[in-house]
Structure formats: structure tokens, C-alpha cells
């Protein structure tokens, strides 16, 4: 059975990994290559490398950085940020990315030209939504303005462009750790022909369980939530209570461990710790 995906998102500003809140309040986290390396080791199903600054600055993607990061990823790597032409897309793929994420530059002609050369599956269309009162509006992160276009109409349009997946972000919940917006996700998902990846609001393992139980989203992505705990993705996967299929292939198994209310690992009993002395772990060499 197809597994629900846990995707590690690496947001970058000035070639540095950042944490963000409501698409702003950027604070440094560290180096992209190291983050990709750890996400890969900790069992990420995919990795999203998203540069939030290059389009604003009128810069092309940092191809060398993409290449440096791709070396660490044994799972698919998607890159987004200033992908505004077929030629740039080509260079991003050449640098080692498997998919590209398009946000600001999204247009029928760009998407169709990229799909023609690289296939529909290579394009993830990123949609940012801002909630104002009870209304959900399409949001442009460059101009910080909302569009009057209906969400349903926009999704219908995307269906006709030949995209592979949708990356849906709710701006309000970015970095707020208050859970995913289930209503919004169901609304978008109902109109999308293609798989939906959701990001924005992850704060507990339970949020992902709720996401997979209550929506048809095929993947949940997170940035902040995954940056500050050892083995974060492996721990998250061990804590998912959803009945959905989850791929859990690392040697980092936490199903026999106890966690506190904040999803933090409790210390093992002294007896268990003592039994770990002199335990030889044989690592498979492929």
C-alpha cells in the first residue's frame, strides 16, 4: 500500500536554513547540507529545499548549493525558489534535484513547457493561503496581497496545466505549532486531481495523525517542527497513531519508548540503560 509521506522542509534565506513564523520572523537554524544530511538519515520520505529569498532579490537559484545538498539525499529532493523559466528548471534538475517547486512564477505556459520536457511528475505547484476572518484567500508572498480568485477556480486551472502535486501552505499557521487546518485541506483536496502535500502548523505527532485520518492529503511536510529534536522524523513516525501505512525503514525505532506530552523522549529506566552496556549492534553493509 502507498505510504503517507513525511517530508522534511528546509527553508533557506541567504543560503542559510531558517525557521519562520507566518512567512516572516526568520531566524537562523544552520547549514542546508547538514540539514538535508540529517533529514535523510532520520527517515525523511522526501526533502523539500525551498529558498524564500531569491525571487525577492531577483537572483537565480544557487545551483552549487543544490548540488551540494543532493549528494546527501538518498530520497527524492525537490527544489523551489526562483524557478521562473524552462532553462532554470533544466539547470536545477542538472544540479541534482528530482522535482521543482513553483510558486510565484506559476503560469500555464511555464508549467506546460517544463512538463513537456521533464514530465508532469517533476512539478510541484506551491499554493499559499491566508485566512482572513472566515475566508481563505490565495496569497502572494512577494506582494503580500491576496487575490480575489476563488480557490476552487484556481485548483481547476492547475488541474489543466499538467502538474504533478500541490504543496498547500496556510500562512497563518506557519511556525505556530497549532495543527493543520483540516477544513482548508479537505476543501482544496476535494478539487485537486493530483496528490496534495500539506505544510504549516505542525507542532505534535498527533497533528500528522489527525491529518492522515481526517483528510485525503498524501503527505505532511514540516520545517521548524523537525529542526530541533534529535531523530525528529524517526521519532515522529514512531508516534503516529494513524492506521494509515507509514514507511519506517530506519534503525531508529522508538515504539518501545515513552514520550512526554510535548513529544519529548523520557529517560529510560536504569535497568534498561544497564542492559545496553556491551550490546553489539551489527550494521548491514550493502
Amino acid at each position: 500500500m502507498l505510504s503517507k509521506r513525511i517530508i522534511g522542509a528546509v527553508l533557506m534565506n541567504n543560503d542559510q536554513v531558517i525557521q519562520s513564523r507566518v512567512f516572516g520572523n526568520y531566524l537562523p537554524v544552520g547549514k542546508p547540507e547538514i540539514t538535508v544530511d540529517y533529514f535523510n538519515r532520520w527517515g525523511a520520505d522526501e526533502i523539500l529545499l525551498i529558498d524564500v529569498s531569491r525571487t525577492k532579490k531577483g537572483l537565480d537559484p544557487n545551483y552549487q548549493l543544490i548540488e551540494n545538498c543532493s549528494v546527501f539525499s538518498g530520497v527524492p529532493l525537490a527544489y523551489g525558489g526562483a524557478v521562473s523559466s524552462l532553462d532554470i528548471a533544466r539547470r536545477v534538475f542538472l544540479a541534482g534535484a528530482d522535482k521543482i517547486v513553483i510558486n510565484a512564477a506559476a503560469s500555464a505556459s511555464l508549467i506546460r513547457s517544463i512538463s513537456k520536457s521533464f514530465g508532469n511528475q517533476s512539478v510541484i505547484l506551491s499554493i499559499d493561503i491566508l485566512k482572513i476572518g472566515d475566508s481563505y484567500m490565495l496569497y502572494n508572498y512577494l506582494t503580500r496581497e491576496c487575490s480575489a480568485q476563488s480557490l476552487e477556480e484556481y485548483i481547476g486551472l492547475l488541474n489543466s496545466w499538467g502538474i504533478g502535486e500541490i504543496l498547500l501552505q496556510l500562512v497563518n499557521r506557519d511556525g505556530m505549532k497549532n495543527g493543520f487546518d483540516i477544513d482548508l485541506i479537505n476543501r482544496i483536496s476535494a478539487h485537486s486531481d493530483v496528490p496534495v502535500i500539506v505544510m504549516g502548523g505542525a507542532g505534535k505527532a498527533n497533528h500528522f495523525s489527525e491529518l492522515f485520518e481526517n483528510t485525503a492529503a498524501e503527505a505532511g511536510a514540516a520545517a521548524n517542527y523537525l529542526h530541533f529534536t534529535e531523530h525528529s522524523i524517526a521519532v515522529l513516525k514512531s508516534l503516529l497513531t494513524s492506521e494509515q501505512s507509514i514507511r519506517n525503514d530506519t534503525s531508529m525505532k522508538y515504539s518501545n519508548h515513552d514520550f512526554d506530552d510535548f513529544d519529548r523522549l523520557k529517560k529510560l529506566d536504569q535497568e534498561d540503560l544497564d542492559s545496553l552496556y556491551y550490546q553489539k549492534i551489527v550494521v548491514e553493509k550493502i
Partner: protein
Amino acid sequence: MISPRIAIVDYGAGNIKSVLNALKRIDLHNSILTKNASEIEAADALILPGVGAFGHCMKNLMKSGLIPSLENAILKKKKPLLGICVGMQLLAESSDEDGFHSGLGWIPGHVKQIQPNSKFRIPHVGWNQVRLVPGDALFSKVQNDAFFYFDHSYSYSGCNSYVTSTASHGTEITASIKLGNIHGVQFHPEKSDRNGLRVFRAFGNIVLTC
């Protein structure tokens, strides 16, 4: 132990560097990327990658002028071949992606669209469990129902005697095919983490025992 010369065919169809990286990661250091007919004929084994639309890839392969050398190496000299994703689909007789296109026809069967289904959306993207048909040495190091990464909207359909593993996505998806020295996998072993490396290792072993 001599490392076999595995040539990855570069015909302008996708991210071949990650295939090379995966082979190097498991010390198959004698692997190369090639656009060159004589390098293809001299190789111990070949890998045919492929990403994107079938018609587009087939057109590129024909334009590369490499099909005669590939036929020589694979059909005549019976060197092992591993087709990946669209590289596997090209092995079939035809595909109906964006109109009818002929494939290489080295394995009987056709590539058809995966039936759209609101619960199982297309493309078939993500990690899916691969159910093995016993007897394919390519999976000698892999457990049954292991997860591999897929990303495609079209799937091989043909005689079951060529199908060596399947996955389920609302309908049955062919995950791998084999005919003699010719292997094809629909998933991306170069993007399937350690299970993918196990498949490449098994392919390396197949080459060594030739």
C-alpha cells in the same frame, strides 16, 4: 574483486547523476555515464534511466543514435540491462501516453495509463510496498513488501510471465519486469534509500555472475 563496468546511458532523459552516485555509494566505482556507442558495446552491463513522457524519451533515444549499439550489447551479446522508470517502459512495445508511441519492443507488453481514481490519485507518487514474485535475482537482498519510491502515471501491462513484482494503487501496478538478461523497474532505486541500494547491489552481483 573486479568491479564490473556498468554504463549508464545518457540520452538526455533525466537525473542520471543520482544513479551514478548510488552505484558509487556501494563501491561499484567502475560505473560511468555515457553517450558513446563504443563505451556501450564495451560495457559489462547497462542501465537505461528515464524520466518524463514516454514519447519524449523515445524520441531522444532515437536521436542519440545509440539504439544499434544497445541492441548489439543487449540482444546479441546478452549483457545485463536494468531499465529504470521510463527506461523500463521503453522496453515494452508501445505506450499510449500523449498519443500512441512505439517502444523498443524488447519485452512484449504495452504501457497504459493508470486508471484515475479519486481515492488513489495520479501520479502514483511516494513509497509503496513491492510484492515479489519469487525467483528474480534482482530482489535477492530485499524483503517482500519492502518500500520503494514511485513517481509515474503510466504502467506496464502485458503477459504476467514477465512481471516479477507488483504494487497496489487502487489497481495493480507492475513494479518490475524481466526477460532473460533484460530487467526493468518502475520505481526509482536511486531514490529509494537503502532498499534501492540493495537492488543495485543485486544487479552488480548478477553482472559478476555472467
